[in-house]
């Protein structure tokens, strides 16, 4: 996908620059631009670590602590994934970011007919607590936090994480997990949804309520503008839609009599880094500021730390090209630079071979090294928010703020996020944009090195990439494990815990404590999700055009 529109005159000089969010960039900026916009230091920036946190969440930022790196990892059986986890930790990674295969994400066991050919393919296959015991063996769960990339059945995986921790000798108060658990964004992009909108939102609400009460160090939701952007949203929409989705979850939880102050501090975000460098930096700075302002003014949140927009700024998948794949190594480094210049707390980088398949160990380590270079060699830890005060960056940040607010207003005009997704407004808009961007890319209106005719290289087309390979053995092994599990577990416990879960799902009790019991009884993911399927039904996706 292209980054910005450059309109040139007949001699090739740039006449106009228009960013994807719709912002026109001037040839030069000066003090008059900030003056015209009414910019003041106190109102718009504040000192690092001070409201509205445009500059940084912490006064010393990377000086006190470099960013946390969390490469997305997981494939095959829990054994393979456990090995890769240990490799990444031994190489300095300080948090996990767990990938699940599609059957697990969609709540099917490895022996379900729909799982055929998919077991262990794009992430690890998890059927029961047994698999988590293998995957997390030897990982210090009191020190290493885990992001769990799962949404429709995030409640199940969060319960399973608690169960595995307890099994391995940790208490639920020691562990830190961040399930992705953002079902509304799955309905806009990525597509791993199961249940109808209102039930999906209820499950998110249940997990937040439970985390507030039982899991003090866990962050129950990671709001993913990331995938919305990957589906064709502009950077301004990426932030705006994530915030409107957050509001939908906040509404669900406050209806349970819990104050925003008590849970919004547990939200984290996942945003994308590909695209125009300056636009991304302005996006992150504006987002930190807007989130804090919104929580303070609209939800009465007062405690400073609870106003933080915390999260992972990284990835960049849609920016990668299949053509000339090695170019993606350099491309990723620039994306990571943008994240570092934006003060990303946590980061991860798509690996150069991800336009083909999931990364090899070599390419995953290359990404990790790229991130380390920025912190240890290039100088990104030297001083906080080094671009602050730039006439251009501050003007752009203000304009980005306006654009984000405009996009949020549009969603509100449509009746809020739940409604806008239920009737397909957002999906249609984003798909249409993706189509227009793609057309622009193919016509050369947007430039992409390696894709445009002038950078096509006949030699590079033939480059072989060493690829991660799918192994049919994984499915055979998973199915065998599952068969053994079903034969050896205590059926009575399984049945009674699933019954209790069914009652909670059909009523209004929080499903989380019941899920933890089901996990401990070795009920399978497919069985637990099956209870939800029966209770909630499945979503009927609206027409997209």
């Amino acid at each position, binding site marked *: 996908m292209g980054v910005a529109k450059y309109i040139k005159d007949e001699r090739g000089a740039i006449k106009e620059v228009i960013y994807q969010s719709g912002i026109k960039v001037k040839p030069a900026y000066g003090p008059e631009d900030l003056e015209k916009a009414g910019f003041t230091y106190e109102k718009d920036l504040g000192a690092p670590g001070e409201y509205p946190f445009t500059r940084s969440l912490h006064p010393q930022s990377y000086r006190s602590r470099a960013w946390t790196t969390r490469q997305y990892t997981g494939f095959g059986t829990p054994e393979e994934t456990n090995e890769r986890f240990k490799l990444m930790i031994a190489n300095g990674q300080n948090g996990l970011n767990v990938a699940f295969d599609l059957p697990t994400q969609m709540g099917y066991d490895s022996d379900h007919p729909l799982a055929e*050919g998919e077991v262990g393919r794009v992430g690890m296959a998890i059927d029961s607590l047994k698999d988590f015991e293998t995957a997390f063996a030897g990982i210090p769960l009191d020190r290493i936090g885990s992001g769990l990339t799962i949404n429709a059945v995030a409640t199940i995986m969060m319960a399973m994480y608690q169960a595995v921790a307890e099994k391995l000798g940790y208490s639920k108060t020691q562990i830190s997990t961040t399930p992705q658990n953002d079902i509304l964004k799955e309905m806009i992009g990525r597509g791993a949804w199961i249940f109808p909108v209102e039930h999906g939102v209820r499950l998110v609400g249940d997990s937040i309520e439970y985390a507030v009460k039982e899991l003090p160090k866990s962050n129950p939701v990671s709001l993913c503008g990331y995938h919305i952007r990957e589906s064709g949203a502009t950077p301004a929409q990426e932030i705006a839609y994530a915030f409107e989705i957050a509001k939908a979850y906040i509404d669900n939880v406050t209806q349970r009599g819990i104050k925003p102050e008590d849970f919004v501090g547990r939200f984290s975000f996942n945003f994308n880094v590909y695209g125009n460098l300056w636009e991304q930096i302005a996006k992150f700075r504006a987002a930190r500021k807007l989130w804090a302002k919104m929580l303070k003014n609209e939800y009465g949140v007062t405690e400073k730390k609870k106003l933080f927009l915390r999260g992972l700024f990284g990835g960049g998948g849609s920016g990668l090209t*299949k053509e000339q794949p090695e170019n993606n190594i350099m491309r990723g480094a620039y994306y990571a630079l943008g994240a570092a210049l934006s003060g990303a707390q946590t980061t991860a980088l798509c690996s150069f071979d991800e336009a083909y398949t999931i990364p090899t160990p070599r390419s995953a380590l290359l990404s990790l090294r790229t991130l380390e270079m920025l912190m240890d060699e290039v100088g990104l830890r030297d001083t906080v928010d080094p671009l602050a005060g730039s006439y251009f960056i501050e003007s752009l940040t203000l304009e980005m703020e306006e654009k984000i607010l405009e996009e949020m207003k549009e969603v509100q005009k449509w009746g809020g996020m739940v409604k806008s997704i239920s009737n397909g407004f957002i999906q249609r808009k984003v798909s249409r944009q993706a189509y227009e961007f793609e057309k622009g890319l193919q016509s050369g209106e947007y430039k992409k090195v390696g894709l445009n005719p002038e950078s096509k290289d006949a030699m590079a087309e033939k480059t072989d990439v060493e690829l991660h390979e799918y192994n049919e053995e994984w499915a055979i092994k998973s199915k065998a494990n599952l068969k053994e599990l079903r034969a050896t577990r205590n059926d009575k416990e399984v049945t009674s815990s699933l019954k209790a879960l069914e009652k909670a799902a059909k009523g209004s009790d929080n499903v989380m404590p019941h899920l933890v019991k089901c996990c401990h009884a070795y009920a399978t993911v497919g069985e637990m999700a099956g209870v939800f399927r029966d209770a909630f039904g499945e979503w009927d996706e609206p027409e997209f055009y």
Partner: protein
Amino acid sequence: METKNKIRVLIAKPGLDGHDKGAKIVALALRDAGYEVIYSGLHQTLDQIMQTAIQEAVDVIGLSIMSGAHLPICEKLINMMKEQGLFDVYLTVGGVIPHQDIPRLKEMGVAEVFPGGTSFEGITTGMNKLFK
């Protein structure tokens, strides 16, 4: 296009993968190029795809597959199409398809393969060729 009536295409997403941007933008591109496009929606079984293809009397089924499982999926669908007598319906496939798999797909009877990176023009040219 040389035929008088609009050519009917079913763009379908088989399996559990939910990455539908490619399928959706190809659907939009084909519609702009004059085709009648039906989109299956996500998480379709091959049976569901067959059913829609028959009900909608389509001329082409266009599968979008990102998961790497294109060989077994296409083989299965081709057999189902033969069993159901859909001899005049073309099967095409797009998505993350390595070049070395294209000959095998064609051998089993896939009419056109559009790996990621194929331009809209490349897709419509390939499709139009089928109806000359």
